[in-house]
């Protein structure tokens, strides 16, 4: 069991280092499995430095930097053992536009690589524009949700709560 964990760890660590650099367009990061007497208590440590910055405590990272680091780890695990579905509920909310663009590149390449179907809930126009299809959720009747297939223009209008979109 301990060997299997070590094996999984090496694969995930390798991928994490690559994905981090893709999301940050540079920088350096790696994982460490702090071996404990008791493998049940081994800790997974994360070390990350965005481009040009020193490696410091993970907690000092900004909101957007934490999201990118978390995404790199999440997808490193995912690539190692893909599943048929992946759902992201406003996962990119803290990102600025250039990081959202790299986030979308990564989601798209993972979708193509693993054949996984993605459900991406978003308020971001950039993300909507990268999706293969869009569904809008509306409440024409208050408190009652309805699902409707939409194009990009209607999606943005619905997100903005425009009355036109309820038609």
């Amino acid at each position, binding site marked *: 069991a301990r060997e299997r*964990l070590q094996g999984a760890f090496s694969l995930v660590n390798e991928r994490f280092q690559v994905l981090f650099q893709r999301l940050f367009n540079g920088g350096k990061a790696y994982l460490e*499995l702090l071996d404990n007497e008791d493998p049940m208590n081994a800790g997974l440590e994360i070390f990350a430095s965005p481009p040009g910055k020193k490696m410091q405590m993970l907690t000092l990272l900004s909101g957007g930097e934490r999201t990118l680091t978390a995404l790199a780890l999440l997808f490193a*695990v995912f690539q190692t053992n893909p599943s048929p579905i992946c759902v*992201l*509920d406003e996962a990119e909310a803290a990102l600025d536009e250039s990081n959202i663009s790299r986030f979308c590149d990564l989601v798209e390449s993972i979708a193509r690589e693993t054949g996984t179907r993605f459900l991406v809930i978003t308020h971001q126009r950039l993300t909507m524009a990268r999706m293969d299809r869009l569904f809008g959720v509306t409440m024409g009747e208050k408190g009652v949700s309805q699902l409707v297939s939409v194009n990009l223009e209607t999606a943005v209008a619905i997100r903005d709560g425009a009355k036109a979109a309820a038609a």
Partner: protein
Amino acid sequence: MHFTRLRLHGFKSFVDSTDLHIGTGMTGIVGPNGCGKSNLVEALRWVMGENSAKSMRGGEMDDVIFGGTATRPARNVAEVTLELDNAHRTATAEFNNDDTLLVTRQIERGSGSDYRLNGKPLRRRDVQLLFADQATGAHSTNLVGQGQIDALIRAKPQDRRAILEEAS
């Protein structure tokens, strides 16, 4: 195996029967605040066997049943069905005999949840196993809830190590 369709009926704000077709690639879901997007995500986790009412933002599991609005009465039953395309026969052995698998969970106010697979009653543990064999499940890292993306960063190193189990 592919996830192909999610149907909701009476689940939270989806009081009327609603079908979400899950296509290939990336599907975007949009809408104003409070319209029901996260409710959709919770419906998927719920049919996979989520058993914590708190992680569904409620106090007890009955809270996922449509509670009524200013103009519509509350319901007493909520049902969610997940359709799986099993043409390549990659499902858990005992459930691997059909091209299409329909996993259904139904809850009735005051009397708990029932699970069914292609109409046949099933225990929650079997549903959870079916999805665990697909490297997914109500609590797996590939289902990222709202505000949960940095959970991995915030977690203690010991708890973080658990995700390596998902990778092995």
